[in-house]
């Protein structure tokens, strides 16, 4: 990939991919590793993208795959994330942290769907494609995630 084009895409999508990675990994360090791996793959990729939206979609898919691989690695099995207070991403606003923590309490399979639906405005079909799930599975998990979020926010 052309360097100028790469830099343009980094400027445009770095924060989005970092948010997806953080959402999947739950800790800043792993999210940064995943973000770097994802953009490294972009730079080395020979994919031809017709438009920027396709690039973003590709980046998100790669970031989620990288996050899932990280989670399943032998080392990750024997390590844990530090206490939540150490994992605060930069610029979190305290008065909104209830929702942030509520989302972090969700299992990863729900968190990813919630983020793609509520933040990235992806449709059920697009989310199913990214996560390699059926649309029914996506709808079910989204429904359950909403219930859990409501329950958690009601308690706090």
């Amino acid at each position, binding site marked *: 990939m052309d360097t100028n084009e790469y830099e343009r895409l980094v400027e445009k999508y770095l924060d989005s991919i970092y948010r997806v990675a953080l959402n999947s990994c739950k800790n800043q360090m792993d999210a940064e590793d995943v973000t*770097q791996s994802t953009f490294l793959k972009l730079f080395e990729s020979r994919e031809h993208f017709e438009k920027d939206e396709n690039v973003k979609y590709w980046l998100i898919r790669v970031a989620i795959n990288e996050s899932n691989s990280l989670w399943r690695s032998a080392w990750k099995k024997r390590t844990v994330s530090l206490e939540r207070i150490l994992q605060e991403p930069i610029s979190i606003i305290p008065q909104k942290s209830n929702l942030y923590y509520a989302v972090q309490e969700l299992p990863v399979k729900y968190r990813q769907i919630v983020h793609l639906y509520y933040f990235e405005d992806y449709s059920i079909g697009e989310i199913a494609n990214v996560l390699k799930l059926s649309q029914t599975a996506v709808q079910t998990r989204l429904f359950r995630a909403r219930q859990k979020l409501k329950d958690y926010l009601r308690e706090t």
Partner: protein
Amino acid sequence: MSEELELKKEYKGTFAEIHASQDLAGKVKDIPKLSKSEKGTAKGQILSQKNRVLKKLAMVAAASVVLIVSSNTVLYATTGSTWLKKLVIISNKKEYLVDMKGEVKDDNLVTYSGYILGESGPTAVMIVREQEDEASPMVLFTDLVISSPEIVEKDGKLYLIDDNIKIDITEDATDGKAKGIYQMNDVTYQYDAQYVDEGWNLKISQYTGEK
């Protein structure tokens, strides 16, 4: 505004505040500047086990939220050595005296692993430090995702125990050998166990579908 739209608005508002650090942005932007060999190294470094642990050590030390463990550790043990030690662990302001298994891993890292029996049941713990001297900081990791799997014999039956699962593998075992697959945390694993010198050697790997 409907509840759904409100949730969407709040979600976007919350997560829009999250940005990649300047340091991360710099590293990502610099990827094209890396030579071919450096990219391979960068890839390795990104996934490096040691770097991940050491970054966590530095992060925790800087945050000063580390739980202090009082002990004298073995110095300069050879890689692969294992030993048992009682360590005092302070977690959530409570003290626990824990039997920990110590071992030296690659890259000069000493790890201790064991269990705290807390109010909500057993919690696996792991402590990691560099094998330098007794003054080096020790970092406590709690709530381990998965503990070490093992084979246990009880009442004439054979069980494979891993994290919070216990599988009866009696029927899979013949002539001191047992092989099979099991599911845990949405991942399929395969196990290969052999009874050697009055104990079980157990190998666990992710199931690839190959027989």
